[in-house]
């Protein structure tokens, strides 16, 4: 594997649900060996890094985010040796692997909590956040408003309340206890030793609690992250910390610190804005949010995505915009989940391939490292009638064979049924068919990733929005030394003209990047382009 320590600046990530990817032992649930078996496919597609959802021991009451042993692999997924093999095989193919790590809380079945709840004097008594009443920190909001009423839950055994920012079966760890702080760093060391390339740190803003605050983004939390970073840099150079902090960009940047906290943070608000821009057929929702995105330290990078395993997150849009997104994308109230919308990309855009491609073109050319969600590369659908967030976690559709080629178990044994409807079902949408079809979404995606890989400017270049009188046209320039890429797209369902102010590049020749077709050179006059409905161009500007 290459030893580029800044790999994450240019990488394309692929979020994969181990449970849903491939079942190697025919028990109806995907596993680590199944993922290893499909690494050739991922290498062919051209992704640089996988992001695995939690694969630790867990009662699975929250998709594995309720961890009951940080040092053990969930038996359904395999054992530690399988994880080691996966990492080695991935590295042989130049693919890195980062994994979810939940630092904020554990499952209530974790032995630590079981011990802690016994009484007030046991050795783990202070490992969680206990109180005699449920009144403290009233400023902290309840995040899972659909299922939780309070951040406190009563434990009859101990006769006290414990603090939980998420589900009540997920008690928050007490980071004011030095043993907890140290033990969690041991967890990090353990997995990096095995070869993982980094972590996506789940729910980082909530590690500490302080009176008179909303208990989010506290200085103590940042201090702890700096400590983790220091340990990682010292012993494991080139490993990456990616923070999940669903906040406005001006607050999220704090998690980069001075380049001494997290290497990457997700940029949450840009995602709903991309959908909104297409719906409104105008660029303002996008340029507004990119305009208010602060610059970040040179060794840091945004993570951007269209969809992930969670809902289309709307926490970070204003009420008015949230109502608007709901009205547009979730006419069926079942689709509303917490403050978001539980849909996959294809159904979200009415299965319009042009829109899906346009949105991916934005994802691949905006500042940041794109994160794909498994199945979106073939245009998979969802099943909103499955409970909670399972609707977007159905089995990967490999072929038109039984169980979508995902598993040879009995159908009834599958962790979730594969999609079988006539539009998105595995008979119609699957990897095998799309591999054979040169014009498939999958082949298009592979081509886009190839082009992106050839131009580090997409990962590391500057970003400048160009003036265009037509509100439906979004044009921007990415620049890295003499690698200059001009992107222009049409957010409207109608064909649109645009005159672009490109005088700065007078004399250069635009080469369309997917077909390498040269366009007329840029002159003194505004550069005229015509864009098909939802069309986009990527041009490399070269010396004429």
């Amino acid at each position, binding site marked *: 594997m290459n030893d580029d320590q800044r790999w994450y600046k240019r990488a394309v990530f692929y979020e994969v649900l181990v449970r849903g990817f491939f079942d190697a032992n025919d028990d109806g649930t995907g596993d680590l060996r199944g993922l290893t078996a499909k690494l050739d496919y991922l290498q062919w597609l051209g992704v640089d890094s996988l992001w695995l959802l939690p694969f630790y021991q867990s009662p699975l009451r929250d998709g594995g985010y309720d961890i009951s042993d940080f040092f053990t692999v969930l038996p359904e997924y395999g054992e530690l040796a399988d994880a080691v093999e996966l990492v080695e095989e991935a590295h042989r193919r130049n693919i890195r692997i980062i994994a979810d790590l939940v630092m904020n809380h554990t499952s209530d079945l974790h032995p630590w909590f079981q011990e802690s709840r016994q009484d007030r004097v046991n050795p783990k008594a202070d490992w969680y956040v206990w109180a005699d009443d449920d009144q403290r920190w009233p400023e902290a909001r309840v995040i899972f408003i659909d299922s939780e009423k309070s951040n406190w839950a009563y434990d009859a055994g101990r006769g006290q309340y414990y603090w939980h920012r998420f589900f009540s079966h997920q008690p928050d760890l007490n980071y004011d206890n030095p043993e907890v702080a140290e033990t969690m760093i041991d967890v990090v060391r353990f997995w990096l030793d095995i070869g993982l390339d980094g972590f996506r740190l789940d729910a980082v803003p909530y590690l500490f609690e302080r009176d008179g605050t909303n208990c989010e983004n506290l200085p103590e939390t940042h201090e702890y992250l700096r400590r983790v970073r220091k340990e990682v840099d010292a012993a494991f150079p080139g490993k990456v910390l990616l923070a999940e902090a669903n906040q406005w960009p001006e607050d999220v940047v704090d998690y980069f610190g001075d380049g001494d906290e997290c290497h990457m943070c997700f940029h949450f608000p840009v995602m709903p804005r991309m959908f909104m821009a297409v719906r409104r057929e105008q660029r303002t929702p996008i340029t507004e949010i990119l305009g208010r995105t602060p610059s970040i330290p040179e060794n840091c990078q945004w993570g951007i995505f269209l969809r992930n395993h969670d809902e289309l997150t709307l926490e970070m849009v204003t009420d008015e915009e949230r109502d608007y997104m709901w009205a547009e994308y979730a006419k069926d109230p079942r689709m509303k989940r917490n403050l978001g919308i539980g849909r996959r990309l294809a159904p979200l855009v009415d299965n319009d391939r042009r829109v899906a491609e346009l949105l991916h073109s934005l994802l691949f050319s905006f500042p940041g490292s794109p994160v794909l969600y498994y199945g979106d590369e073939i245009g998979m659908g969802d099943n909103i009638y499955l409970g909670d967030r399972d609707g977007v976690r159905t089995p990967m559709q490999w072929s038109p064979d039984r169980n979508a080629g995902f598993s040879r178990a009995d159908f009834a044994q599958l962790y979730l049924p594969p999609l079988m409807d006539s539009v998105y079902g595995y008979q119609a949408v699957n990897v095998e068919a799309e591999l054979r079809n040169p014009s498939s979404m999958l082949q298009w995606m592979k081509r886009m990733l190839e082009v992106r890989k050839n131009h580090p400017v997409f990962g590391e270049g500057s970003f400048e929005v160009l003036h265009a009188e037509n509100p439906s046209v979004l044009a921007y320039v990415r620049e890295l030394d003499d690698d200059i890429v001009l992107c222009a797209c049409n957010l409207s369902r109608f064909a649109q003209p645009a005159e672009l102010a490109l005088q*700065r590049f007078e004399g250069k020749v635009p080469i369309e990047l997917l077909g390498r077709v040269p366009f007329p050179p840029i002159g003194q006059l505004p550069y005229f382009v015509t864009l098909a409905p939802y069309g986009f161009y990527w041009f490399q500007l070269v010396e004429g």
Partner: protein
Amino acid sequence: MPLPEGVSELLPGYLARQRWYGGSEPDDLRILDSDLLLALERETHRLWWALVGAEGARWQLLLGERPKGEPAEFLQGREEAVLGLAGSAYYYDGTLDPTFDLVLLQLATGGAEEAERVRPAGVEQSNTSLVFDDRVILKVFRRLVEGPQPDVEVTSGLVDAGFDHVPRVLGVWRRGGDDLAVAQDFLVSGVEGWALALTSLRDLYASPEADPADAGGDFQAEASRLGQMTAAMHRALSAAFGVFRDPGRAGEWADAMAAGLHHLRDEDPQWRSHAGSVVDGLRQVSDPGAAIRVHGDFHLGQVMRTDSGWYVLDFEGEPARPLQERTRPTSPLKDVAGMLRSFHYAARVALREQAGDAAPGEVLERQAAAWEGHNRRAFLRGYLGYPGVDELLPGDDRSRSAVMTAFELDKAIYELAYERSYRPDWIAIPRDAIRGLLGAA
């Protein structure tokens, strides 16, 4: 310094071809002043400045000169901007010449601003604007007024009053007491309100039977924010230029409107008397609200949606009205009426795009009316909900509505006269509006 020989003979024909002049060849053209501003390329490329009188107004010209036969890329497709040959040189609109423009910017800002690149800012009705490095816009006034240009005066006043939704003034080019050009921040992320409204309407019209509130391109939130910005602008205008509560101001407004009623002479004869009653209704309002300095020509083409909200441009008032009338304090509802009229225009213009000359059909008609009403309400919600704007408006709803209707009608009659002269194809738009306003009154 006088213009080279033979140039003045080319001017009447040139003027008649300019949109900002908007008239036929003048037969009373006089050169009031002229100067040589620049001489480059061993004095073969020259930029001349001239102030000419024609048809009772003063016009600013910037004329480029190049040797006969020497090509200029920037003149391609711009035949109307070429004056023609005089002696061994040809003459053209000097603002099209990037070399000259870069120097003009320095002149206008006293050397404070320099740029590498320039481009024209698109077609305009009354001025010529140039954009430098997508950062600065230089507006060259064509028709000069006596004293400061209202645009410069008002923009500066608003900024001083703390209103930051106008582009900052970076410099003014003055000569002999006249404002010749103004340099301002260019709103690079800006999109004209008119273009946004049409985008919303095209989306609506392409979704048969859809209600404007359900359509993807719903404009309501923008309209409401635009209303808020308008109210903030009026608060700032009243802080900068004063609040006037002269008794009899409603009568003055009514008098000015009554003078415009003759434009209805070729219309349904009943309209004139009905319109007269609307104007009398205004005259009788006892509490018509304050008079303040207003924008004066407020419509969707004068506002820009930027990444930091709506901005407002061009405080020159309606170009066809005399300066004194344009700068006279009046009701802020004049601007409100102007914007509401603009919503109507947008809905109808987008309808013409869909249907061409054919009748648009019932569904589209209904959608057009629904879009207008929906956004009209949103705009007014934003405007009337803005803190403190009440103090400038009539106290009770009846007076408010009487004043508003009168200003909307006045605007529609002005539009009728304008369309009759310049765009007879569009005359149905104000005509329908007048019919509606008189029917409702």
